[in-house]
């Protein structure tokens, strides 16, 4: 059974009753079958938040359906043991942090006898124990985002839907969240992590679902995606005579000079790397290192998005 699933989902919005419907998602289908962190990536306006809101039953799709653990997402049962962290924290500002957590804990129908211990645990996890009795409106944005994460941790749910959870955090907060996500993944939780920050995806995720303009660009393992998009090899050598550099240029290789005794030859494919090595051996030049050059995730996704653009 899949943790999360969208089946041919389309969603259109109307700004006004009389205005034309603007499509946000077009026949989007994907599944999150595995535990661990699945990155949900795409530029701003790609449809990430819309997809997440449909998964949580907050939006009704124009067509198609969404499921959490096989349960249609518009049913309350689908959201049992599911945590949601929104990009911006949405709290009742008249409550204190503890009151807000108590309200959320009870709405989730977790065991009442563990309430106090659980609130203490989550506040400690996000390093907010000291502000538990403060009114939410007195907290900084970063603190509110940590409190948002504390809400998600309540009751130790098995699925975490995270919509740009690190926005508004300082570097320390970001590190705290990253460690927290890795810790949850290590505990066999399913994290669906939406972001447009590629670095976070590269650091945290094993799987990636990439969107652009409301349609899917890629879904699968991050390693596979990177392996599929290797960009040739880099051959590090000592000094090379100028005539050899000329021959390398003739074959279409580029040579970067770090210093006269340290040069890097860039070749476009693995096969060309072998040809280049042979040429160098013929002139008694022996490479120091040969490394495969992998395209950055950003360039791969950008390229995929560019292909789709009219």
């Amino acid at each position: 059974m899949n943790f999360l699933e969208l089946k041919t989902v389309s969603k259109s919005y109307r700004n006004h009753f009389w205005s034309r419907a603007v499509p946000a998602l077009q026949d989007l289908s994907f599944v999150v079958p595995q535990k661990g962190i699945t990155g949900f990536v795409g530029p701003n306006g790609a449809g990430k938040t819309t997809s997440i809101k449909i998964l949580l039953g907050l939006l009704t799709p124009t067509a198609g359906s969404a499921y959490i653990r096989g349960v249609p997402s518009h049913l309350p049962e689908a959201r049992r043991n599911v945590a949601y962290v929104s990009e911006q924290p949405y709290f009742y500002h008249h409550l204190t942090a503890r009151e807000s957590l108590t309200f959320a804990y009870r709405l989730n129908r977790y065991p009442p006898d563990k309430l106090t211990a659980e609130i203490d645990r989550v506040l400690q996890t996000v390093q907010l124990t000291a502000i538990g009795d403060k009114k939410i409106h007195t907290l900084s944005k970063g603190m509110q985002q940590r409190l948002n994460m504390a809400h998600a941790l309540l009751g130790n749910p098995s699925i975490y839907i995270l919509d740009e959870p690190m926005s508004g955090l300082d570097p320390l907060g970001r590190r705290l969240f990253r460690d927290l996500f890795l810790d949850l993944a290590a505990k066999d939780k399913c994290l669906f992590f939406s972001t447009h920050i590629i670095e976070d995806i590269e650091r945290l995720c094993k799987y990636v679902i990439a969107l652009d303009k409301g349609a899917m660009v890629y879904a699968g393992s991050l390693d596979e995606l990177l392996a599929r998009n290797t960009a040739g090899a880099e051959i590090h050598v000592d000094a090379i005579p100028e005539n050899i550099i000329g021959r390398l240029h003739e074959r279409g290789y580029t040579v970067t000079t770090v210093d006269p005794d340290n040069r890097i030859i860039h070749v476009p494919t693995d096969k060309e790397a072998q040809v280049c090595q042979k040429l160098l051996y013929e002139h008694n030049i022996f490479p120091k290192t040969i490394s495969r050059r992998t395209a950055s995730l950003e360039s791969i996704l950008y390229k995929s998005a560019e292909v789709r653009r009219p």
Partner: protein
Amino acid sequence: MKSIALIALNTFRETIRNKILYNILLFAGIIIVLSTSFGEWSVFARVQVMQDFGLATMSVSGLLLAVFIGVAMLGKEVTSKTVYMMAAKPVMRGSIIIGKYAGLCITLCLNFLLMSLFFFGALLFIGSTVNLKLVAAVLLTMVEMGVIVSVALLFSTITNPTLSAIFTIGFYIAGHFNDLVGIETLEGSKRLLKPVLQVLYYLLPNLEHFNIRTPVVYDLPLTGDYILFAVLYGLLYITLFMSISCALFARKDL
């Protein structure tokens, strides 16, 4: 059921921390105090003027409460997205609406209790008495406000807070003039307007059924059956409006 109780409690907490509530209470208190002196300038008896003013003040302050707190309660939650605190959890959308309504009704009851104590106290202060008819009048005003709050919530599910407030006030006014709409329809003076008036007459509740100020003030006969009918009439409309609100909110994009 537990979710409804939790949401109702949270709504009640939110409303009693709202400054508007105290401003409305203060406004009602000032009017009731002033009404003790109005009787001296009037051709009617001082007690009658005070009773009339007191009950009218309760009705108007109930309306203000329904508009400023009731409308804002759901509309603001949707626009500010705080509704995600509940809607993203294993809670039925209908529970959110019913919980909000229940919380508002608790606030409304507390508000009426305080106003009644003040009003009855003022009557006793000028040497009058508090009879069952007066208590029944307050009860029916509360039921009327229950209807108004349910309508305010209904409008909040389909439009923005400003329009909801305007529609709710419009509904209150139209509901009180429903008798006149009926007379106009029967006389059929305007052919084009007749079908519109007919629809309005049958669709809108007649809020004048909850207004028993005249029999209370002039001590006219009033039966228990009438009170019971009016309460049931109000409950019927509340059930209708709440059912529509729940159905609409269940499909609403948040």
